[in-house]
């Protein structure tokens, strides 16, 4: 029987070890797996490398994980956000290293990692500081830089609906990086708002096929980052 359900976020992230690389879904608050991140804070793993488009806001979710000094490196495209004070402090103090990657290159690197493509050429960032130090090559009529696929030890993502096989649907623009991260995580962990029996999802509309998913935990009423931030919430 294929059944990837686990009882809780805590159980889902129990084996994340110090030094692990972790893909974390979301663009801003849309798709951010807050409950999984909070479980990871409780769990205690340190010296993490986090690959995520942003660095969270306020002092909840991803920002709280950073604030707890668990993350020594961030790979992202846009660490600045309206209510983000945590990352700038850690960055300036030198505690957290930043690898800044153009958003489309970040997406493609994650997809490439998940798809077994070790490297690819892209015209993005040629002639800019983010293209510096990278192998450059003229292909067709374009200059390109070489970029490498990203595979991480874990992926933490949020879905709207899951089944026990790990087939996933997302909610609107919360989809963003999650289907790619599901592919690129050696262990992919999903918090789903609803879990339905296998066979309930139309095979035509599944966005992430279950083969990319290892664990599914139901978080029926996930928090919204903006609501928590507005309320001045902190975690833990």
């Amino acid at each position, binding site marked *: 029987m294929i059944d990837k359900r686990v009882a809780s976020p805590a159980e889902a992230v129990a084996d994340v070890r110090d030094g692990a690389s972790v893909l974390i879904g979301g*663009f*801003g*608050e*849309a*798709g951010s797996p807050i409950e999984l991140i909070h479980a990871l804070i409780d769990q205690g793993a340190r010296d993490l490398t986090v690959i995520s*488009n942003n660095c969270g806001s306020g002092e909840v979710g991803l920002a709280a994980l950073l604030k707890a000094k668990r993350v020594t490196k961030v790979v992202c*495209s*846009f*660490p*600045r*956000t*309206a209510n983000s004070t945590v*990352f*700038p402090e850690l*960055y*300036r103090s030198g505690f957290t290293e*930043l690898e*800044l*990657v*153009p*958003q*489309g*290159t*970040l*997406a*493609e690197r*994650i*997809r490439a990692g998940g798809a077994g493509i070790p490297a690819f050429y*892209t*015209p*993005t*960032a*040629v*002639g*800019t*500081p*983010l293209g510096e130090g990278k192998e450059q090559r003229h292909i067709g009529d374009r200059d390109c830089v070489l970029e490498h696929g990203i595979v991480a030890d874990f992926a933490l993502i949020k879905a709207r609906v899951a089944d026990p096989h790990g087939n996933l649907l*997302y*909610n*609107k*623009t*919360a*989809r*963003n*990086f*999650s*289907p*790619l991260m599901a592919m690129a995580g050696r262990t992919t962990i999903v918090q789903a708002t609803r879990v339905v029996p296998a066979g309930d999802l139309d095979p035509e509309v599944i*966005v992430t096929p279950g083969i990319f998913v290892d664990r599914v935990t139901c978080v029926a009423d996930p928090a*919204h*980052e*903006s*609501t928590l931030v507005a309320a001045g919430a902190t975690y833990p």
Partner: protein
Amino acid sequence: MSRPSEHAPGWTRDEMARRVAVDIRDGSYVNLGIGIPELVAKYVPAGREFIYHTENGLLGMGPSPAEGHGDPELINAGKRQVTTVPGAAYFHQSDSFAMIRGGHLDLCVLGALQVAQHGDLANWSVGGPDAIPAVGGAMDLVAGVKSIFVITQHCTKTGEPKLVESCTYPLTGVGVVDRVYTDLAVIDVTPDGFRVIELAPGVELDFVRERTGAPLHAAERLTGV
């Protein structure tokens, strides 16, 4: 260098946005950057339909939702809540940037810190050791979208020209800008450098030249003069 004026001649931000919209062909797929570019969506000329792409994963973006009717997971690249129009579609980041990098979008309208005379754009970082760098999709957009329009004040708040011989801020892309819409003029980027094709009402060419950090050619028949 000119000093800023309280009552500067030229277009307002909304007029600039309206002017950009006039140049967008019916049926275009358009990505609007954060800030002034977002205003363009308010001025779709009668009889035309544009499809807005937001790089976080939506084609067919509509206006902001009515208060209390939004979904915190339906947002645009600026992380503001939006809506969808009929015919909209959601997709993941890799597909979204395939649209961008693959040249499927017709137009991107972006803000700028500086534009150089041969089309280099700087719009993502002021450099400096203490700045927190953040790039988002800007470099992908300028590398991939068919046409890049810049909409920006002609000068900075301190009166420095934003149209320059070469950028001093870190580049977003090399030779990528096709046209610049400022409060003073519409300016093409040509192989010969900047070329004014239209002046804002009441603005003289020399007035623009004085506020531009690079040679400024003029079209033979300047509209708006």
